[in-house]
Structure formats: C-alpha cells, structure tokens
C-alpha cells in the first residue's frame, strides 16, 4: 500500500472523508436526540438543557482558541520547523522537538509525511517520538482544559506531559534497532 504523492510532495490524505465524518457524526447525534424526544420528551429536554449549559460555558473559550490558532498560523512556518528539527543536536534537539511539538497544529496525520521526510534526511527517531508526544499539548485548547479542570490541574498535567515526552524519547533511544532497512514509504528524493 503506497500513498500517491501530490505535486507538493506530500501524500494525498483524504481529508474530505474526515470532514464528512464530522457532519455525519453530528447528524447521528441529532438523530439520537430526535429518537429520544419521541421516546421520552422529559429526558430529551433535560439533555438539551445540559447541552446548552455546556455550550454556553464553552463559547468565550472558543473565541480565545480561534485567536490562538490564528496567531499560530500567522507566525509559525513549516519551513522553520523543518530547518531546526532536522538537526540532531543532543539535548538541544530534545528541547527543539518538544517546543515544535507543542507549537505544531492540525491533525497528526498531516505531520507524518514531513516527519517521514525528515527521518529519511537523518532526523533521529527519538526526536520524532518526542515531537509526536508533545503534540498532545495543545496550546490553543489549554484555556478549555483550564476552564473545565482548573489552572492548577492544567499546569501539573502539562509539566508531566513534557516530562513524559522526554521519557518516551529516552526509552525509544534504548530500543534496539533492526539492521538498517528502509522504513516507511516516503523517499526524500
């Protein structure tokens, strides 16, 4: 199975499917509400009230999220990450993989082609693991996490996650490597 490459060099990822999936998911939940309204109008009303309460509390945070996403898209360039994460430089590499992982946005599969490319150009697997782990820290969504679970929880969790990324990288580095064989399907040519 080989993903075909687009003109810009990245494999074709069917994003249309996942977009449709979101709308199908929403339609299914609305369908479930409609069914509940027929079976038990009281429970349907209770559920709708709970939804409105949740949505209302999330609204201001969503505006903040939009601002963070906008700033990320405006200030952080893929070429910048490609340039620095590609160099393996000991602890500095860990720091850079951590920071770029935290700053990266978008779905994870969008980053696979770039990481595969960087791997073929000599990026350490360890740094790829650190990058992928730290992608879990979503700066734009942190206000939502803090508003739901508190600032203290958010800070503690984030600190442990950064340490977790480091631990994952160190473990990955100690896993015995197989004899050199071409891995992945993307060549860097």
């Amino acid at each position, binding site marked *: *199975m080989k*993903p075909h490459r687009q003109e810009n060099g990245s494999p074709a990822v069917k994003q249309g499917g*996942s*977009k449709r999936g*979101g*709308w199908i*998911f*929403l339609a299914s*939940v609305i369908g*479930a*509400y409609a069914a*509940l309204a027929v079976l038990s109008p009281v*429970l349907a009303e*209770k*559920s709708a009230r*709970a*939804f*409105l309460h*949740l*949505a209302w509390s*999330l609204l201001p945070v969503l505006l903040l*999220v*939009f601002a963070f*996403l*906008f700033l990320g*898209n*405006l200030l952080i360039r893929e070429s910048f990450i490609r340039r620095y994460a590609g160099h393996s430089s000991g602890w500095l590499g860990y720091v850079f993989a951590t920071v770029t992982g935290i700053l990266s*946005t*978008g779905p*994870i*599969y969008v980053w*696979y082609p770039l*990481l*595969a490319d960087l791997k073929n150009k000599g990026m350490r*697997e360890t740094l*790829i*693991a650190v990058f*992928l*782990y730290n*992608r*879990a820290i*979503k700066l734009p*969504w942190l206000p*939502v*996490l803090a508003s*739901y*679970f508190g600032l*203290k*929880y958010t800070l*503690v*969790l984030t600190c*442990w*996650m950064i340490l*977790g990324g480091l631990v994952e990288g160190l473990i*990955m580095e100690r896993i015995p490597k*197989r004899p050199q064989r071409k*891995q*992945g*399907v*993307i060549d860097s040519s």
Partner: protein
Amino acid sequence: MTRARLHEAFTRTNRMFVSALPILLGMLLLVGMVVSILPRRFSHTLFSGQPFWDALEGALFGSVATGQPVTSYILGKGLLEADVSLTAVTALILSWVTVGTVQLPAESLFLGKRFALWRNAISFVLAVAISLLVTKTLLLLR
C-alpha cells in the same frame, strides 16, 4: 506582515475551526445526553475507584477513541460530573491525544511499523503512569 499573509492565516484558521465545529457540537450534544440519561451508578460499575484499574480503563478507552483533544476534555468533564475519578479522566485525556489506534496504520506506513508500535505502546504505559502521578501531585499541592 503582508495583507496576503494575514488573509491566508485567517482563511486557514477559519477552515480548521469550521471543520472542528460539527465534531464539537456533536460531542457537546452527546455529553449532554449521556450526563442526563446515564445513572450515576453506571460509572461506578465501569470504574471501580481503584486508581490503577481506573487509569488502565481510562487509558484503554482513550486509546481507541479519536478526534479533537477538546472532545476528550468535554467528555472528561462529563465523566467527572458522573463521579468518575480524576485518575481515570486524566488517563483518558492523555491516551486520547498520545495513543493513536485509529492512526496506527498511517503512522506505520510513514514512519515504520516498529516505530509506530513501540511509540504507541510506550505512550499507553505513560498515560497510565502520568495519570497516577498527576493525581498524586495534585494531592501534594493541596
């Protein structure tokens, strides 16, 4: 900073936001329904309250789920309100974003099967360990 760059960043952000919107709305609706329908006892049968097993079950659930991280926050908040332990919710949130069972084939394809399997396995173990450590840390800071 050019006008074109500002426009490009805004369009890209808008696209990301709009694509996340149906999932967000769907999850909010679903959580509203789950919280209203499921009796509180249900969560007690699923999560025992024993930290290690709660973490393991939370991590298992988060590993097979997929979607925006914010979805796991909303779900986690709903579970907390249904009296599920913070350890289980933390493990769910962590594994939701660090373990990608659904993305495993794509990750294997691009970065190699060995790398993808090891990375996901280590992330799962870390989700369990970190969820226990987060709870312990919060207890110490109280």
